[in-house]
């Protein structure tokens, strides 16, 4: 049996016999480190560290190559990623979370020093524990970065959705007042939410108001054209309102054909036109909202 295998067995033995002692030493060191997250619940901390130590113990006892114990042994991997997720949510920094895992090294090594009399074996076991827990620390870091990435993407999507509200202005008339720079991704979302709203409301006219949009590039102009075309396919009409002079110039210069698009200079003019358009098709609308329709 090689020195390393003997060291691994020793660690398993010591983790088994002294897990309470290791956990207690570690918790004591942690309470100040994780304090930035508010009151640290010692019971929860204890449960987490117990799960990690149990994962280490079982992973080492299994016949798995040492390098794969942290990432390949599911109970240990999950314990470490759960730990990282929970503290990240509570606002603890990535460094502090990784540091907490690294601190488990000290707790283990101290117990190993008392438990293994043979100095060579003790050195081997110490190195082994360091390698294992360095891997676990890196894993918390990776988990932290991944979950941040996920949060950023989700917020990005939410921001896009918030910034493109589709409102009902009149019976069967919808509008999206766009404010700020339109990029391709946002134009895509505008298109989808507007068309979905047309379907859900059986709207006859959709107004896209770009008064608040400072500039439009070719890709965005293309998206606007596509929105108009898709609206027509669904059986509704689209009005583009609030085109600023600069944008009108640019559209003209880009040679984009807007001949089939109904345009109005302001949202108010567009609404007037839309009400007239809805009024032109009385029929069943008259039944539920006849008073509104009489206005036109």
């Amino acid at each position, binding site marked *: 049996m090689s020195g390393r295998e003997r060291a691994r067995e020793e660690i398993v033995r010591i983790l088994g016999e002294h897990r309470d002692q290791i956990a207690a030493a570690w918790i004591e060191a942690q309470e100040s480190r994780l304090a930035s997250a508010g009151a640290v619940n010692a019971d929860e901390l204890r449960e987490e560290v117990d799960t990690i130590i149990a994962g280490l113990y079982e992973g080492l006892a299994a016949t798995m190559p040492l390098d794969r114990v942290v990432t390949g042994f599911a109970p240990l991997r999950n314990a470490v990623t759960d730990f990282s997720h929970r503290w990240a949510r509570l606002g603890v920094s990535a460094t502090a979370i990784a540091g907490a895992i690294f601190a488990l090294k000290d707790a283990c090594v101290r117990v190993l020093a008392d438990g293994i009399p043979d100095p060579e074996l003790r050195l081997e076991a110490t190195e082994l524990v360091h390698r294992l827990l360095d891997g676990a620390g890196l894993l918390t870091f990776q988990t932290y970065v*991944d979950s941040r*990435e*996920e949060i950023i993407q989700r917020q990005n999507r939410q921001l896009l959705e918030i910034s493109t509200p589709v409102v009902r202005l009149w019976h069967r008339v919808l509008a999206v007042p766009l404010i700020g720079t339109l990029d391709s991704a946002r134009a895509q979302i505008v298109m*989808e939410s507007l068309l979905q709203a047309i379907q859900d409301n059986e709207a006859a006219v959709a107004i896209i108001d770009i008064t608040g949009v400072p500039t439009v590039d070719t890709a965005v102009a293309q998206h606007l054209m596509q929105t108009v075309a898709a609206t027509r396919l669904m059986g509704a009409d689209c009005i583009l309102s609030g085109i600023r002079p600069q944008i009108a110039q640019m559209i003209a210069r880009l040679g984009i054909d807007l001949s089939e698009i109904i345009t109005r200079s302001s949202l108010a003019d567009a609404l007037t036109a839309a009400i007239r358009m809805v009024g032109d098709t009385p029929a069943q609308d008259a039944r539920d909202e006849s008073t509104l329709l009489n206005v036109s």
Partner: protein
Amino acid sequence: MSDRKLVKNGQVCSLPIRAEDDLLTARHAVRAAALQAGFGLVGQTKLITAASELVRNCYVHGGGGDLVIEHLSPPPRAGLRLTISDDGPGITDPAKALVDGFSTGPGLGHGLGGAKRLVHEFHLETEPGKGTTVVITRWAG
């Protein structure tokens, strides 16, 4: 593609395209996979439409072949990769075939080029006499 690993439980599904009915079966399979991968309504529709174009090409021009559906999951995104292959006559001028309006069979000639626009990644491999393989990928969300 090496940086994108398959889902651990390796969900791969292969369908033969031999008869006209297989076109509908293929659509159903792609829809089911897209739902499972968490695609939105629009993404789902785009992917099924692209698959429909390519599967029809495979049946009509390639004399039949196979559709392989794979679940991709490079975190934090999910996606689907479809591979449509046949041992047919191949495409003589692939660049031309990707231009809208070019068609040697039914449809408006928007098949290949259209399918390309509906997905995030598009890869065409063909040689006269050696069949055609198209690999498309679309990410959910």
